[in-house]
C-alpha cells in the first residue's frame, strides 16, 4: 500500500501539469496565433450554395477552416498560424462562387 501511494504521486503531478498546459494553449502555443475573419456574403440563401463559397475561400493560401452561418449570411474564415487574408482576396473568392461580399472584418485572434 505504501509503495503504491508513493508511486502514484508523480503520476498525479504529471497529469495535473498536462491538464494545466492543455487548458492554457495561449501560453503553450503563443507562436501559433490564428487570424479570424468574418465576411458577409450577400445572396446566400440555401445550403447547397454555401459549399461553393466555402470551397472558393478554402483555396486561398493560408486558409485553415471556413464555416458558414446561413441564417446571418456570415462566413468565418480561420487562417493558419501567421497567415492573413486581404479583403480583396475574400471579395474575389466570394465573387467566383457567384455571390457578393458586403462586409469584411478581422474578428480577433484565436
Amino acid at each position, binding site marked *: 500500500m505504501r509503495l503504491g501511494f508513493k508511486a502514484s504521486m508523480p503520476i498525479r503531478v504529471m497529469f495535473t501539469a498536462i491538464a494545466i498546459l492543455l487548458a492554457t494553449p495561449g501560453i503553450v502555443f503563443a507562436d501559433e496565433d490564428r487570424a479570424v475573419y468574418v465576411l*458577409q456574403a*450577400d*445572396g*446566400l*440563401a*440555401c*445550403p*447547397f*450554395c*454555401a*459549399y*461553393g*463559397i*466555402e*470551397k*472558393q475561400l478554402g483555396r486561398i493560401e493560408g486558409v485553415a477552416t471556413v*464555416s*458558414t*452561418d*446561413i*441564417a*446571418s*449570411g456570415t462566413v468565418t474564415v480561420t487562417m493558419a498560424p501567421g497567415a492573413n487574408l486581404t479583403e480583396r482576396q475574400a471579395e474575389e473568392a466570394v*465573387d*467566383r*462562387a*457567384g*455571390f*457578393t461580399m*458586403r462586409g469584411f472584418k478581422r474578428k480577433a485572434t484565436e
Partner: protein
Amino acid sequence: MAAPQTFNTALPVAEGEFVFREQFFYRKASDDPSPADREVEVLGAISVLGYGVTGDFAAFAVLPYLDKELDLTTAGGARITRSTNGIGDARFFGRYTAYRDDAPGRTFRIAPFAGIEMPTGDDDDSDGQGRLPATLQLGSGSWDPFGGVVATYQTLDYQIDAQASYKINTEANGFEFGDEARLDASLQYRLWPRELGPGVPGFLYGVLEGNLRYRGKNEIGGIDDPDSGGTSLFLAPGLQYVTKRWIVEAIVQVPIVQDLNGDALEDDFTVRAGFRVNF
C-alpha cells in the same frame, strides 16, 4: 443550388466547381382516342453535369438514357409491343447570369441560356415490325438549337423560379418534330427547419411546379401530321431535401390541361426522383 426539378435555375455554379445531377423518371401516356389504343411507357435516367466556368457563366451537359415501350393494336386487331432502349440525344448549353441583385439572405437573378441538342441517340432502330416510328426512336437524328431565359428569386424561406424557352426542331430522315415553346414556374417553400439554427442545416422544401408546353405539328415528308402537337399544362407537387453537399428530390407531374391536335397521345403522369451533388 436549390433548383426546380422540371427545368433549370438561375442560381450559380461556383467557378471551377462541378455539380452532378441524376434524375430517374417514369412517364406513362395511354389516353389514346384512336383505334390503335396506344400506350407508351418511358423509363429513363437523365445525367446532368454542370461546370462553373466563372461565377457568372456555367456550362451544362445533359445525357439521357431511355427505355421506351409502345403497346398498340394493329389494323388486324393484334396487340403488339414495340420497344427500344439506349442513350438518347445529348444536350449542351451555356447559361450566363446577366443580372444579379444580392442582399443579406436573398438573391434575384436573370440568366439567359442557349444550347444545342445533338443527335447522339439512335434514330434508325427497328424491330420485327420494321423501322420504329420516329416518336419511339431514342433520338431525333437532327441538330436542334434551343434557348431561353430563367429568373430566380430566392430567400431563406422560399424560392421562385420562372423560365421561358424555345426549341427549334430540324428535319432528319424526312421527319421533323414540331418546335417546342415552354413556360415553367416553380415555388419552393422551406418546411423544415421552421427556425434556422446555427451553421448550415439541411432544408426540406415543399415544391409546386407548373409547366405550360406548346408543341407544333410534326412534319412527315414536309407535310403536317394532324395527330401531333398541341398545348399541355402540367402541375407538379414534390419534395426536396437540400444540404451543403447533396440534394435528394422527387416530384410527380400531372396533366391539368391537354389540348392536343387530332389523335395525339395524351400524358397520364410522370414521376421524377433523383439527387444532386456538389464536388
